[in-house]
């Protein structure tokens, strides 16, 4: 019954009363990949993740985990989940909490004990936390412990909802390294994060969601490569120049006779200089710019990076 697709959704739609959570989300994540899930606040990322984790029931459409319906015992057995809000109880020690979760995942005895030591080490916590009350942990330590609980039963799919929000740069790097290591072990990771540079560094595929719908998806390098921007400076930067450039792409005026032009097609690069000169202006600068995932993201959600 297991599918080669770790995650498969078809026209997944979730409404909360009259409020839409996500609409017609269709995506396929092959096993063993790191999938970056991006979108602004309230775009519907957490809704999709919660449906996949079996915490929300879809209004329509389907969602499967390795071919098993999301929320079914077979699907839940295969996934680990790090929620955005990781309200760990404060009274037990990390060891007690991990033992409890391990027992619920049908792990016992020495196997569980060894695995607890292993995941504690893996998330960069000192061994002493095993006997330390969670109530005394810092926010970063709690987040690491939360990741440890998700890894405990060796899940084949890890759903990470903002897993580095409470971590310092060192901690973020360690989590990135952990994700890369998990990919090497053929664990699929769905990474829902606002930190685009993290996603860009580790994701094999990304999807950008806006107002509940996926507006762009694919390999981040290919997506970025498929987009070319050029910084142009013309004298004078007349309305005629702006009109001519608008035919070739989206124009972001930057002042001082300069504008950033996001080309519709990278092949249009050769047409930029003739268009400016045909408008009766002199071309002073034409510099191709490498777009980042952040540029791509801001373009996809319809926002322009201020001051760039």
């Amino acid at each position, binding site marked *: 019954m297991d599918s080669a697709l770790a995650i498969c959704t078809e026209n997944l739609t979730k409404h*909360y009363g009259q409020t839409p959570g996500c609409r017609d989300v269709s995506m396929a994540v092959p096993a063993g990949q790191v999938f970056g899930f991006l979108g602004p606040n309230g775009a519907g990322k957490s809704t999709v993740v*919660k449906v996949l*984790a*079996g*915490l*929300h*029931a879809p209004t329509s459409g389907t969602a499967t985990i390795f071919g098993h319906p999301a929320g079914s*015992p077979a699907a*839940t*057995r295969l*996934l*680990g*989940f790090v*929620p*955005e*809000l*990781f*309200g*760990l*109880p404060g*009274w*037990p020690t990390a060891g007690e909490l991990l033992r*409890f*979760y391990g*027992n*619920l*995942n*049908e792990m016992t005895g020495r196997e569980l004990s060894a695995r607890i030591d292993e995941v504690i080490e893996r998330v960069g916590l000192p061994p002493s936390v095993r006997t330390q009350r969670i109530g005394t942990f810092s926010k970063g330590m709690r987040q690491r412990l*939360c990741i440890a*609980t*998700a890894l405990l*039963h060796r899940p084949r799919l890890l759903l990470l909802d903002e897993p580095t929000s409470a971590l310092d740069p060192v901690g973020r790097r360690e989590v990135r390294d952990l994700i890369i290591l998990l990919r090497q072990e053929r664990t699929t990771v769905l990474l829902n994060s606002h930190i685009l540079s993290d996603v860009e560094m580790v994701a094999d595929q990304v999807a950008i969601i806006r107002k509940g719908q996926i507006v762009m998806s694919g390999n981040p390098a290919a997506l970025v490569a498929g987009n070319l921007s050029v910084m142009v400076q013309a004298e004078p930067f007349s309305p005629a120049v702006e009109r001519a450039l608008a035919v070739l792409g989206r124009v972001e005026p930057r002042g001082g006779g300069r504008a950033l032009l996001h080309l519709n097609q990278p092949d249009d690069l050769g047409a930029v200089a003739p268009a400016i000169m045909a408008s009766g202006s002199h071309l002073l600068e034409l510099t191709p710019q490498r777009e980042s995932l952040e540029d791509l993201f801001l373009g996809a959600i319809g926002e322009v990076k201020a001051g760039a």
Partner: protein
Amino acid sequence: MRKVLLVAGFTLREALRRRFLLILAAAAVVVLALFGLVISRAWPETLRHLTPVQARAGIWLGARIFLGALNILAAIAAIFLAAGGIGPEVENGSMHLLLTRTVSRAQVFLGKLLATASLAGLFSLFLAAGVGLSLVLAGPGWPPGWHYVLLIFPVGPILLAAFALGLSTRLGTIGTGITTLMLFVVAQVGTMLETLGNVSGSSTLMNTGIVISLLSPIDAVYRWMIYRWTDGIGVVGALMRSTGMEAPAPSVWMLVWAAGWLVVVILVGTRSFRTRDL
């Protein structure tokens, strides 16, 4: 069943570390000690003025009034224990971590129910046993028929705990607490109407009271317990009821009804939790 017990064990350990439970236990010990002290002073005094049978009747009457106060304390404890059972854990995300284990929502609900109902029941049993023990230590002795109290006194708080936990699958702690407290108050209103109906001979009042008691059988179960206990006291029980200012004794079927009510509350609570988006 193993996972239900695992969740129950974890919930129980969590509850036992809460300061609230310590305060509650300390308050119960103080109240019971005060009761024992009062009875130990009152018992020789009443014996000086009354026959032993009359003196005991007075003490049993006092115990009954005190038990009524403890019934309120046990109800409040049950509500406190169960009202925050599920809602806050959904809000802070810990329920998300729990439910992405291989454990069903029904198992989590039943585990939490087992823990909170056990605590509510044990606390009530402690109160009832404490009253009995105080009477033994203070002089009048173990009240006849007190086994009915030990058996039935914890039932009301268990019913309340189950109702509160079921409600906490949809409401926050305060909403659940207030609504469950209202259920307890409504049960008292049912008893009041039945009493007024009995005294005035009004079948309308009586029937309204019975309907309310069926909807919220908590106080009816308590009344059944009181009647069974006072029956056990014999002459003294008859003496206590001679005023006629009582609601009629509930039938034993009220206990069966309460058991059915509990099953329905558990089923509805489980279903509510299973179908909720978390």
